[in-house]
């Protein structure tokens, strides 16, 4: 059954969750900037997510030989980002184990993308609202 909120609403929400998680990691990295031996963490999910979505889609087109077959949808709940530690810690006194420029750039990109996703979602809902309002006239 087609969803009133569009196929991508769940995916959008998941990506927003992951972006929030990435933001949390950036905050954590910056909080620990003066800790010797602390390794910077990053959160990777884009390529994996793309692959996971793509896998399901290509599988669908290959395996569904009949309309009566059960379609397998991409389940957003099972997906998780992978936190990656920077491989080698630096413990030189006074030198950061966390690259502040990198963290700030990640944060900027991340929050912009998050805000963009929110806007997309808002527009989705606005569209539905319009349909309801105009249909009732």
């Amino acid at each position, binding site marked *: 059954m087609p969803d009133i909120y569009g196929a991508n609403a769940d995916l959008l929400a998941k990506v927003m969750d992951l972006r929030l998680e990435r933001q949390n990691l950036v*905050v954590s990295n910056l909080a620990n900037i003066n800790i010797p031996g602390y390794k910077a963490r990053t959160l990777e999910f884009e390529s994996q997510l793309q692959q996971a979505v793509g896998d399901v889609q290509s599988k669908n087109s290959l395996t569904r030989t009949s309309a009566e077959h059960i379609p397998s949808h991409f389940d957003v709940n099972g997906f998780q980002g992978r936190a990656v530690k920077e491989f080698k810690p630096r413990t030189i006194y006074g030198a950061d184990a966390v690259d502040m420029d990198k963290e700030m750039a990640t*944060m900027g990109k991340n929050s912009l993308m998050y805000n963009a996703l*929110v806007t997309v979602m808002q527009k989705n809902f606005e569209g539905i609202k319009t349909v309801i309002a105009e249909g009732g006239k």
Partner: protein
Amino acid sequence: MDFMTALDVGGSALSAQRTYMNVIAMNLANAKTTRTADGQGPYQRKSVALESTPVTPFGKAMNAALGDELQGVRVTGIVADGRPAKQVFEPGHPDADQNGYVQYPDINVVEEMTNMIQATRSYEASTSTITTIKSMYNKALEIGR
């Protein structure tokens, strides 16, 4: 995933850096102190010991591997620096020993200022992460509007 995790982590960093700042101010203020309150010779330079901490004990037990990666920061203590005192020949000083030498704390103003700038920058970085996360939360609240 906790809603306010990022704010907790950012807040822990702010308080740690503020403590560091207090200690730097104390060092600079006592750069010429030859007699401490307990009467034990010159002031000894202090520094802070910082430690990464899990965000919440509960989170550590319950969360997935992803949650365990998040770490706040905590001041474990203010530790005395072991460097020896500076000997300065000042026979007129009330704290001079029988040879006329006064023990001054070995505090390098440049070093303290450098540490101060580092603490300031780190503090600023944490405030800007908190500002960003706040704007993200506010933006998310716009969805249902």
